[in-house]
């Protein structure tokens, strides 16, 4: 607790104390955050306390505002993906998926079915990592350090797999408009199949440690209660809404990608308290594994092995042949460019990406091998060019781990977005958090805040 004379610059809040100063029942204003170990992320809560009871609370956000929407208007459509990674940075792949689907809707193009399956698989892996993080951090804040370590271990298996596919653990930028960056690495699905039981072992262990744990139960049960009507009218979505008993899940209600082909359940709570939110999240991880099992079994064809006659050319040989002007021949030859050259697998890329030259980069064999590919590549990369969706506006929504993640996009037909607006799920959850903490104890703010799973990156954008 710091000295009260610290120059911490409180902004002009509107919180009016309800009691007269000097009276016996004089309440106390307590400022929590924006930089506080329990406020993971940066957020400020100003509470008025009567003893330990919260009389009023004012939530202040914006400490991590980075101008995501303005940035999207500056760069091209395809270059906004790194920014979307940093929205919900615990499940960046889902942000990627939603953004890519938005631009595809503007362009009215569709990637291949295999690509849809890859997107579902990556989304569900991300959902598990997000829920793992939420439950782990929530338990740790109540003192359950063991549970935290177990779940972080489980998350590490999945992050390792994500890294194999995307090249990064967090800042993945794996999706492209009309497809994905590259196919799944060889043997990756088998490794995922091996990793999932290990992950779920950790979850089961934590389930045994926490679910019937007296301390955990008492801290979570009937804390942070919100009714279904309140949650719905305040714009709640995701596990917090489902904990109140409303079975709203975009994967079921408005199926996107290939979610309508999978058999899975939407877990709901009954009370709308923190304990229900915890149970819903744990069960959702199990359902995600169900989806993953089905997706892994059904994912259509691996990379088509193009059987072209003759010895494959190396990249250097191809350039030599091209320099001699024998480019017509090259279209039919199989080329093996340098294996480190990304996007150099024509067959795999054809099998994944939408066949649309307005949005999808040509395979590297074409970029380096023929003039059409080179021009196509330049037109998508050059300043002032790029992906140019026809003028129009769309709204696209995905079921992110925290709820409905939406993008509203306006295109004016140029290579840059005219307007991109992100609907972050936790924006609405934080708006309603007031109702969940007022009337409770100050110590209950921590588990309630933890189970809301606020991610400052997407809250403040």
């Amino acid at each position, binding site marked *: 607790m710091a000295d009260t004379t610290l120059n911490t610059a409180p902004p002009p809040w509107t919180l009016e104390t309800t009691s007269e100063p000097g009276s016996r029942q004089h309440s106390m204003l307590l400022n929590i955050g924006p930089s506080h170990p329990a406020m993971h992320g940066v957020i400020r809560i100003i509470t008025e306390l009567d003893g330990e009871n919260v009389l009023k609370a004012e939530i202040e956000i914006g400490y991590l*505002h980075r101008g995501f929407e*303005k940035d999207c208007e500056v760069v091209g459509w395809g270059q906004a993906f790194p920014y979307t990674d940093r929205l919900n940075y615990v499940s960046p792949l889902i942000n990627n998926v939603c953004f890519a689907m938005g631009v595809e*809707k503007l362009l009215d193009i569709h990637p291949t079915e295999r690509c849809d399956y890859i997107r579902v698989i990556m989304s569900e892996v991300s959902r598990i990592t997000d829920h793992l993080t939420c439950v782990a951090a929530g338990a740790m804040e109540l003192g359950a350090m063991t549970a935290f370590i177990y779940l972080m271990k489980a998350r590490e298996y999945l992050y390792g797999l994500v890294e194999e596919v995307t090249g990064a653990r967090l800042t993945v930028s794996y999706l492209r408009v009309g497809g994905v960056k590259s196919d799944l690495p060889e043997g990756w699905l088998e490794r995922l199949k091996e990793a999932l039981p290990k992950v779920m072992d950790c979850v089961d262990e934590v389930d045994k440690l926490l679910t019937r744990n007296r301390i955990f139960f008492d801290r979570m049960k009937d804390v942070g209660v919100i009714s279904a009507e309140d949650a719905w009218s305040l*714009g709640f979505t995701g596990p917090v809404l489902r904990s109140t008993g409303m079975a709203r899940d975009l994967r079921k209600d408005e199926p996107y990608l290939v979610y309508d082909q999978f058999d899975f359940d939407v877990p709901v709570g009954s009370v709308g308290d923190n304990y229900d939110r915890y149970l819903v999240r744990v069960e959702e991880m199990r359902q995600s594994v169900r989806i993953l099992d089905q997706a892994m079994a059904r994912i259509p064809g691996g990379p088509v092995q193009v059987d072209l006659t003759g010895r494959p050319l190396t990249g250097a040989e191809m350039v030599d042949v091209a320099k001699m002007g024998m480019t017509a021949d090259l279209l039919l030859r199989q080329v093996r460019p340098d294996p480190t050259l990304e996007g150099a697998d024509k067959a795999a890329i054809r099998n994944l990406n939408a066949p649309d030259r307005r949005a999808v980069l040509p395979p590297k064999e074409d970029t380096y091998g023929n003039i059409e590919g080179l021009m196509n590549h330049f037109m998508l990369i050059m300043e002032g060019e790029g992906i140019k969706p026809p003028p129009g506006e*769309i709204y696209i929504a995905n079921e992110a781990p925290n709820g409905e993640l939406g993008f509203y996009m306006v295109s004016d037909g140029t290579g840059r977005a005219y307007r991109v*607006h992100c609907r972050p799920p936790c924006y609405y959850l934080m708006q309603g958090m007031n109702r969940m903490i007022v009337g409770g104890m100050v110590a209950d703010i921590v588990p309630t805040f933890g189970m809301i799973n606020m991610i400052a990156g997407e809250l403040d954008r």
Partner: protein
Amino acid sequence: MGNPMPENPVLNRLRAQLGEAVVETHAHRGDVTVVVHPDRYHEAMRLLHDDPESDYDFMTDITCVDRLKLKLQPRFEVVVHLYSSRHNARIRVKTRPLSDTDPRVDSIVDIYPGANWPEREAYDMFGIRFNGHPDLRRILMYEEFVGHPLRKDYPVNKRQPRIPMRDIPDDRPGMMFV
């Protein structure tokens, strides 16, 4: 944006009630969109919320578009996305505040309590004033911020003046910092 509008009972109902105030409708890429006159905007939202045929009980999102560089008048466009759980349908409602210098529309917080923060954000980012909003303050930016950053005439690289350190108000003697 000129896709032909399919027959839609909700839009017919809106047209019957509001008449000329329904300025425009379209369904680009299947997103049903209706533009209403700002004077009748609140009434339209009330109708969409209460009428059992539409029953849009969930406010998904509110935002704004500055149409300055599209060279369209009026300049601002408030965009609301609604969802109906009964009909599993979405609709986009837009309204264009008449004034460019002091854009105002009615707040819909009394219909959709969840509109509180998104309207504050639209005020913060675009300077749209929502009549009847209970607490219209900046939300992502700080109070001293000059201008509205998502307006098209706000340069990306604009710098803000430094603000003086604020004192802790004297009338908050009991404030504790944790």
